[in-house]
């Protein structure tokens, strides 16, 4: 086992601990958390906001093919609700546009 393997295991262990911690804390404290008002609105918006933060720099970094692919993925997901189909169409769009020289 080399050094980068050890780093990988460390990252996985740390992630596992944090993800488990959220599951466990929900069990312990979740019922005491306010289910109305601002806290709820913030918690409800967080998953979408996280994904928005994840994708926009990635799309911007992929240039024109990335922007077109994002549009294709948006339409495909809205029309079919199938995430995997949208993924394949998006990746295919990037491959095609790159092949065409964009």
């Amino acid at each position, binding site marked *: 086992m080399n050094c980068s393997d050890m780093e990988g295991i460390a990252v*996985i262990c740390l992630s596992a601990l944090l*993800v488990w911690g959220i599951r466990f804390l929900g069990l312990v404290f*979740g019922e005491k958390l306010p289910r109305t008002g601002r806290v709820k609105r913030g918690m409800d918006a967080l998953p979408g906001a996280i994904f928005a933060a994840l994708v926009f720099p990635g*799309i911007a970094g992929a240039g024109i093919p990335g922007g077109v692919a994002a549009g294709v993925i948006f339409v495909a997901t809205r029309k079919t609700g199938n995430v995997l189909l949208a993924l394949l169409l998006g990746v295919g769009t990037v491959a095609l546009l790159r092949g065409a020289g964009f």
Partner: protein
Amino acid sequence: MKGELARGARAAIPVSLGIVAYALVFGVLVAGKGIGIKTLAFMNLAVFSGSAQFVLVGMWQTGVSAWQMALAAAVVNVRYFLLTAAVAPMMEPYGWFERAWRVHFVTDENWALAMAERRKSPIGANYLLGGGILVMATWSLGTLAGHALGVSIRHPERFGMDFAFTAIFTALAVTLWRGKHDLLPWAVSAGVALAAHRVLPGAWYVLLGGLAGAFAAAAGKGEPS
């Protein structure tokens, strides 16, 4: 009690087929990042969350520090907090040690199945566990099969595969869109993320963007949803 474990697993068979498809794609991407099959197997059992693992592998070897990767993976999963809170009444018969390992088997899929079943008949935590075990088995086997497939792909960027993480996150984001009142948090999140991505190292842009978006939603007027 044993019967309930089997019932929970049986109920999860249809969703498991969907999980296999995801798992295959994830396995291919993991192989593309040069991650070994043993590391992948360990990650499946230890982290056991599709979205967290996608985020983790997406940041793999991009120079992001270990704790930032872990934090980003965890923040994507804050929703688990709400899932396991709803499960608390089912766990009451058990001691804290048993609750601690059982809660690891809560995923979106078996949680939703257990909650739906509980409305029809009284079920215990074994129903949840049965579904969780099946989900873990199919997720693990699917990703390992995908990994075997993925190592045979040469020059993944020619097929646009380096865009695959952005693509799947975009599709997931679209499914999370709840309507017009998401416009403000998403715009704030995207703006903060784009700015932070330019000036800050690592994965700060994900955390700062997501938190800024959530705060914007909390501060906003809020619409009846």
